[in-house]
Every structure is written in C-alpha cells, then in structure tokens.
C-alpha cells in the first residue's frame, strides 16, 4: 500500500524469541526522514491533499474501494486482498525468532539496509535487558527472518548500550557480486602503485567527523528560506488543514523513543515506596 501519513506510534510490535524465551518489543525507525520537510501548497499557500481517483470514471475513492493488483500481462491484473496476503505470512509472523547468533562484525556491511530501534513492550523489561546484556557481552548479533507489512525481512538484532536494534539485511539474491556485474579479474598489482595509494591514505587519514555528513542541499535551502523570511517575501500563514502533503508534520521521534525505553519525566518514587508497590503486586 502507498505510504499514508503515519503517526510515530511504534510501527510494529511483536516478540523476539530465542530458545523458548519471548521478549515483547515495539519497533521504531532509527532514522528520521530529512530534517527539511517541504509541504505542497497552492499559489496562496493552502496545503494540498492527495486523493485517489479511478482512472476510468474519475470518481474519488476511499481505501475500502481500493484493491491491490498484480499485472500478469499488459493490462491484465490478478487482484489480491489483505486477508489473502496475511494468510501467507508465517504462522508466527509476529515472532522475530533468533535462530542463530553470529559475530556481529562478520556480517558484510553491504547487506545492511535500514535500522530500527526495538523497545521493551508489555509489562516487564527483564527479558529484554537480559538479551541485550548477553548479546553485548558476547558481541553477537541474532539473525532472524520475519514478515512485516507485506514483506519478509532478514534482520540482524544488535545490542548497544543496553538497547536492541534491528537492522534489516538484504537477501543474498538481492546483492550482486563483482563477478555477476562482470568486473575484471584482479591482475598482478605492482607494489609501487599500492604504496603510492597507501601513502595518500596515510596522508589524508583523520578521525570521523560529523561535519563530513551534513546535508548541503538542506543547508542551501535553509539559507534561501531565511533570506526570504527576513525580506518578508512569500511568507504566508500556515493553515492547519486536513492537507499535509509532503510530510509537514514534525514528530519528535527521539522523545517517543525515550518514553518507550522507560525514561520517566517525573522524579523517581522514593525507594521504600517502590518496594511496597512491588510487594503489592
């Protein structure tokens, strides 16, 4: 289904299991979309809304009027319902079953696709902390496949600072090897040539700097906006309407994550009180 403006509640929840232990988790994207979110408006600045219409009769359609179709040949579709797709999911599709643990450093980075934070869900976070601590200690990544939103994922579950995250990996048949691409075989390489490059590398080595990763387009855009704002040019009132094309909504994903990892805003209750509460349970 096309993306619908989704609020950042967790966007998937399920359980991680290893052996017979199940850890309920919620899943959040670990990457935000770009900081700059432009909205689509008309000339006067009214936000626009996207709607779906039938290409035959031009009628506006609700989600209930829409079905997925796979084009088996030009103009000929096989339709598929949500129920049918759900039925194809593995029985335990809400289970990220860690079938094996590999050395975290062993996975070729070329496989990594997208990262998600996993936060403890359900009552206790004990099993979550246990898994995170052991994985961090052994420097292992748990490997599993699971289905989310009509797609099967291969994931590596990693732990860092007591927090679990899932990295979706590409399936091997999605990665092309140099051989498949048709790159030439490695010839004998002259030591002198290697040394020349090695010297350049040594010369330009440094430590990682976040400034190498700035979004320059976004920076130019911000300058343009600031200048126009200062000059009072094309500044309009933002009507908060139903229209929200282009992801105008800015959500504080970090705060959502903090809350869901159990950060309490209010001061912690006195220890004695907490103990009593525990006993009461």
């Amino acid at each position, binding site marked *: 289904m096309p993306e619908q403006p989704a609020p950042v509640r967790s966007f998937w929840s399920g359980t991680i299991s290893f052996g017979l232990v199940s850890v309920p988790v919620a899943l959040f994207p670990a990457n935000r979309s770009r900081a700059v979110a432009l909205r689509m408006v008309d000339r006067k600045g009214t936000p626009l809304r996207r709607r779906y219409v039938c290409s035959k009769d031009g009628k506006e359609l609700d989600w209930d009027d829409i079905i997925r179709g796979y084009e088996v040949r030009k103009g000929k579709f*096989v339709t598929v319902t949500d129920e049918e797709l759900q039925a194809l999911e593995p029985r335990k599709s809400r289970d990220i079953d860690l079938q094996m643990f*590999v050395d975290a450093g062993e996975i070729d980075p070329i496989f990594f696709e997208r990262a998600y934070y996993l936060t403890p869900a359900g009552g206790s976070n004990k099993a979550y902390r246990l898994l995170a601590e052991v994985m961090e200690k052994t420097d292992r990544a748990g490997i599993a496949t699971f289905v989310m939103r009509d797609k099967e994922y291969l994931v590596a579950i990693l732990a860092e600072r007591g927090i679990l995250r899932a990295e979706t990996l590409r399936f091997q048949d999605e990665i092309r090897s140099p051989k498949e691409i048709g790159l030439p075989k490695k010839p004998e390489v002259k030591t002198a040539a290697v040394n020349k490059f090695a010297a350049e*590398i040594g010369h330009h080595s440094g430590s990682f700097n976040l400034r190498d990763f700035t979004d320059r387009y976004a920076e130019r855009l911000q300058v343009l906006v600031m200048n126009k*704002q200062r000059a009072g040019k094309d500044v309009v009132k933002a009507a908060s309407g139903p229209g929200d094309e282009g992801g105008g909504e800015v959500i504080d994903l970090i705060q959502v994550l903090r809350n869901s990892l159990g950060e309490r805003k209010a001061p912690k209750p006195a220890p004695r009180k907490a103990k009593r509460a525990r006993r009461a349970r």
Partner: protein
Amino acid sequence: MARAIWKGVIHFGKSSLPVKLYSAVQEHTIHFRLLHKSDHAPVRQELVDENGKPVEQKDIRMAYPVSRNRMVILEDEELEKLEPQASRDIAITRFVDPAEIDHRWYERAYFLGPDGDPQAYFAAAVALQKKNREGIARWTMRGKEYVGALRAEDGYLALIALRNADEIIDVEALPRPSGRPLAKPELAMAEQLVNALAAKWDPSQFRDHYRDRVMDLIEAKAHGRKPKIVTFRPRPTGEEKLADALQASLAGLRGRKSA
C-alpha cells in the same frame, strides 16, 4: 555483464582514478498496482485543495514551515538554483577507521569498476585493505548529492551511499532501559543459550519465502484457484517464567545435540 549507471573520477589525494559505478543491489520486491475494487481500473492520485478541487501542476508550490503557523513559499526557479552542479568528481574528504562508520549510516551499496587502467584501480583497493581505512566521499550523481564511504570489498572498490547526519538517531541520545539487577544464574543461562545457538554468518541460507508464496498465490489466482486463510496468536514469556524458559531451551538444545 551489468551496465554501469554512472561514470566518475575519484580524487585520491593527488591521484585521480576514473571509475564506473554499478548498483550492488538488485531488488526483487513485488510491485502491486492499486485498482478500483469494482471495475479493476488503475487508481490515479491527484492533488486537491481544501475544497476538494483538483490543482493543476503549474499551480503547485513547495512551502517550508518556519514556525507553527508560518511558512515560506518557494518558487520553482528558486529551488532549481539550489540544485547541485553536475560533476564527475568523487571527492574524498578523509580516510577513517571503518569501525567509526556505523551500520545505521548505510543506505545503498555500489560497486566500482575500473574505467580504463585496471592496475591503478586494483592498487587502490589493495591499499585501502592494507591500511584498513575507508574514504569519506562526496559526489553528485543524477542531480543528487551523496555522502558515502569508499571501501575495499572482496578486493574490489565499493562505494556505499550513507545517510546524512541529521537523519540518524544516536543511541547516546536514548536512555538505557533500567530495572532491578539481572540475576546471575539467568545471565549465565542466557549466555549459554546464545553460545549454543552460535553459528557462522552465511547469507546463502536465507531466502525470501514470503515473496515466493505471494508469487505462488498470484499464479494460483491467475488460474482460478482459491487460497486458504489462517491466523496467529503471540505469547510473551512472563518474568516469573524467564528462568524456566531458559532452562527448558537449554535442555532442548542438549537433547537435539545428543540425539
């Protein structure tokens, strides 16, 4: 033989290295079209204003929200001026320890091939490997600016497009989940369990079975057959049962091994 999608020149200190760029990723995602349920006509999207009136392409503008209730409208010509200039250069800012680049920065991988002299190309790959370094690269490809990592991959050069700094949520910004200290015996059992499930990373053993099943379903329906439907129910492990579950898992694994 795959077709190169772009050609560029890596500026490696004083040396320059002409390369061809190939996608290392070939997606196999099944793409569905949205159809109108009643007549199976494809669905079209259109933009409408607050009154539901369609807005023509020439009347659509982009706006940048500057505060909760103000935004600045940007004209197409203004946005065009922000576009990067076309260039063939892959500029290397610096070389860093590969461990410093987190997986979460990875967006998409490309293989590079020599454009001309293979000697220099392979020498550069060997040098990166030997020095255990990755180059931080910037380039503009098809009208878009990229930041990436230049690294040696199986003796070849690969360029990994990375996400921009502001797209990453740093784990340091998040609180560590806390609670009562974990019990030593449980930690020991969990570690035993993880060790018992230890394996070598072998990507060839995983396949997108769901995709296969969806294709089978489509095939079946194209021939007029009906699929059947099932459901599921999750069962989390309660705190009091954690130790039991660990013990049972370990026992199960031992049983499997001795069998």
